[in-house]
C-alpha cells in the first residue's frame, strides 16, 4: 500500500477493538438504535478527522463544480459543506449495515435488495466457463454487493487487504453469501491465486479506484488528471476476462439497489492502449455513478490534490 495514501486509512476509529466492540453492540441492539449509535460516531469522526474531512471536501467540491458549471462559488461551497457532512453520516449507516450483514440476524427481514442491470447475463457468462472481475469504487456498500451476486448463485471471490481492522466483519458477510476471500497485501505472490481463480472461470470482486498499489496511471477524471490503479485491468487482460462495473447503492437503511453495468473487454493489438481504453471506459462509469450518488462516495483520500510519491507509474 502506498505510504502517502496510507495516512488517510489510519483513522482513530479504524482499529480492530473499535470495530469488534461496535459490531458486538450493533448485532445485539435493535437496528434503529444501531443506526443512531453509528451516526453519533460518524458525527464525532466528522468533527475530529481534519485530514479525511479536508480531502473529502476537495473531492466533493471538484465533482460539484464539474457537474454543475453554472453554480456560483458560494453555492458550491455551501452544498459541498452539507454534502461532506452527509457523507460522514452515511458512512455511519454503512457501518451499521455492514454489522447487520456480518451478524447473526436473518437478512431477509432486515435487508432488501433491488437488482438493476443484467445479472442473468453475468450468470450466463460464468456458466459459459469464463471468469470475470466485478469492479467497484469506494461508493455505497460494496460488501452488500457481494451478497447480492453470491445469493444469485454466482460464486464470488473477493479480493481484500488481509490486515484491515474490519476484515473479520467482511469475512462474516462473505460467509453468509458463500463468498470466499483472496487476501492480498504484504504477500506479493497472492496474486497467483487471483489469476488461477479467473482462469478457472470464477468471478473475483475488487475495488479499483484508489491507487494503493505501486502501479497507477493518470487519466482524466471529472475533467482533471487523477491516478487510478492498473491492477484490475492488467489482471483482466492477462487472465482474458472482462470487467463488470458493479455498485451497491443504499437507498435507505436496510434497502439497497444493486447496479451491474455492461462488461468491459480489454482487447486490442497494443496491450497498453487496450488497458488505457478499458480504464477510461471504467472511469466514465465511475463518473456517472459518483455524480448521481455523491452522497455515498466514501473516498476519504485526496483524488486530485495528492502529490505523494507512493507509486511508480504505469509500465
Amino acid at each position: 500500500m502506498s505510504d502517502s495514501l496510507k495516512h488517510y486509512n489510519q483513522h482513530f476509529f479504524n482499529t480492530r477493538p473499535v470495530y469488534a466492540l461496535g459490531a458486538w453492540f450493533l448485532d445485539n441492539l435493535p437496528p434503529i438504535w444501531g443506526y443512531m449509535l453509528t451516526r453519533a460516531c460518524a458525527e464525532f469522526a466528522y468533527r475530529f478527522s481534519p485530514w479525511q474531512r479536508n480531502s473529502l471536501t476537495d473531492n466533493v467540491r471538484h465533482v460539484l463544480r464539474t457537474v454543475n458549471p453554472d453554480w456560483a462559488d458560494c453555492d458550491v461551497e455551501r452544498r459541498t459543506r452539507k454534502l461532506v457532512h452527509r457523507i460522514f453520516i452515511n458512512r455511519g449507516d454503512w457501518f451499521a449495515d455492514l454489522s447487520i450483514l456480518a451478524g447473526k440476524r436473518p437478512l431477509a427481514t432486515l435487508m432488501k435488495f433491488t437488482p438493476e442491470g443484467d445479472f442473468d447475463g453475468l450468470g450466463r457468462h460464468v456458466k459459459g466457463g469464463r471468469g470475470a472481475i466485478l469492479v467497484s469504487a469506494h461508493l455505497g456498500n460494496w460488501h452488500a454487493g457481494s451478497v447480492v451476486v453470491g445469493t444469485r448463485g454466482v460464486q464470488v471471490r473477493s479480493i481484500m487487504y488481509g490486515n484491515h481492522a474490519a476484515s473479520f466483519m467482511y469475512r462474516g458477510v462473505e460467509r453468509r453469501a458463500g463468498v470466499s476471500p483472496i487476501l492480498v497485501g504484504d504477500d506479493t505472490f497472492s496474486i497467483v491465486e487471483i489469476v488461477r481463480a479467473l482462469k478457472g472461470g470464477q468471478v473475483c470482486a475488487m475495488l479499483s479506484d484508489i491507487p494503493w498499489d505501486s502501479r497507477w496511471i493518470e487519466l482524466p477524471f471529472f475533467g482533471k488528471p487523477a491516478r487510478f490503479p492498473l491492477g484490475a485491468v492488467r489482471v483482466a487482460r492477462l487472465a482474458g476476462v472482462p470487467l463488470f462495473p458493479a455498485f451497491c447503492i443504499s437507498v435507505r437503511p436496510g434497502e439497497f439497489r444493486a447496479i451491474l453495468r455492461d462488461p468491459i473487454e480489454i482487447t486490442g493489438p497494443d496491450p497498453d492502449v487496450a488497458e488505457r481504453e478499458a480504464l477510461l471506459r471504467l472511469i466514465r462509469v465511475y463518473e456517472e455513478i459518483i455524480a448521481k450518488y455523491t452522497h455515498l462516495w466514501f473516498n476519504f483520500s485526496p483524488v486530485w490534490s495528492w502529490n505523494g510519491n507512493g507509486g511508480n507509474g504505469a509500465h
Partner: protein
Amino acid sequence: MENGALKDRVKQMIVESARLKIPPSELGDDALLFDPAGVGLDSIDVLELVVGIERSFGVSIQDGETGKRVLRSVNTICEYIQQSGKS
C-alpha cells in the same frame, strides 16, 4: 533443451514480461527477482511472469506458495520448467 539455452529463454521472457530496461544477459542466474535489493519486481510482475511462463513454456504455477518458491530467480524458474518435463 540445453540448460544454457533454457536460461537465455527464461531471461528473455522475464525482461519482456516485466519490461526491464536491461539486456537479458545482464540478469544474473541467482539474482533475487522480488527482493528490493535484487531486481525489485512487484506483484503485477508476478502476474506477468506466471502468464509468461505458461505461454512460453506451457508450465503453470498453481498457487502463491509455488510462485514464491519458483519465481525466486532465473535458476529456480529453470529448475521448475525442467522438473515439469516441458523444456
